[in-house]
């Protein structure tokens, strides 16, 4: 889909990183940003997402290379360990800077 807004201040919104822009995925990355690693239950509890929802978004983030997912046994219980990658961390910070620019543009327009 190509979008070419007449309002140039809206252009950054067109270029926004859509993988991260989804609120659930943003919450997952924001949570993992603050830990070395965490298991599925921890992320589920921190984000408040349902199990299926979290699993689905986790797959998309893994496909994009923003998180690493390891499955292993800890004390004979299967655990899914999640960790944000360097690409994921850069993409998250870049997205937030991008959003900040959008907000500044919109506020700038409103004050004109």
């Amino acid at each position, binding site marked *: 889909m190509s979008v070419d807004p007449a309002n140039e201040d809206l252009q950054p919104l067109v270029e926004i990183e859509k993988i991260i822009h989804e609120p659930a995925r943003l919450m997952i990355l*924001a949570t993992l940003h*603050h830990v070395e*690693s*965490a298991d599925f239950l921890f992320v589920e509890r921190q984000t408040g997402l349902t199990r299926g929802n979290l699993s689905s978004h986790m797959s998309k983030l893994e496909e994009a290379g923003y998180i690493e997912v390891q499955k292993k046994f800890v004390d004979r219980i299967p*655990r*899914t360990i999640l960790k944000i990658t360097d690409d994921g961390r850069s993409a998250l910070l870049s997205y*937030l800077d991008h959003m900040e620019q959008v907000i500044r543009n919109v506020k700038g327009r409103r004050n004109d």
Partner: protein
Amino acid sequence: MSTNSNFREIDLQAVGKQVNRTVVEDGLLEIMFGIALILSSFNLMIRSFILNYLWIPVAIFLIEFIRKRFVYPRTGYWQISFSIGRVARIFGVIILAIAVLTVIITIVLGGFGGADQGGWRRGLTIALIIFSVLFFCFIAYWFHVPRWYVHGILIGVAFITGRAYDAHWVVIPLGVWITLAGVYVFVSFLRRNPVQTPAESKDVG
């Protein structure tokens, strides 16, 4: 959102606060530090910190053991990130500077040979109190847990009232208070966070 807001700081700070709080929400750190304070009073009697040195690895082991059995099944497993921000680094440097200063004061008061035994105890007590106040305030700030400021203030108030020169009157009751506070927090934590059933505990992914 104010015009001076930083989107990155607002979003990540809020999430970071909640994530970091998991380190202290189970009360185990408080229990271990309260016990360390109690042990410190005995250290002052024997004029050695051997009990605290022995307690550190025991406390680390106990925290991890208890978390594996009681905490992680409730909250999930996480490994804290040790990348700390600029403010925390500055705070750390200040604490380190105070630490060096109090060691120097202790040596000046007590002497290398420990000849002035009253000065030695006074110096150690001062060092202990300053460390404890700064440590608790740092934890309260870093992990955003206001009750740790209360612990730090209580230690400071006790010092100011002049009872600090007789360490047992200060350190033991404070250690007991902090330990009991930690036990209360731990029990509340267990009640608020039920263990997942075996069917629920299989994570999906």
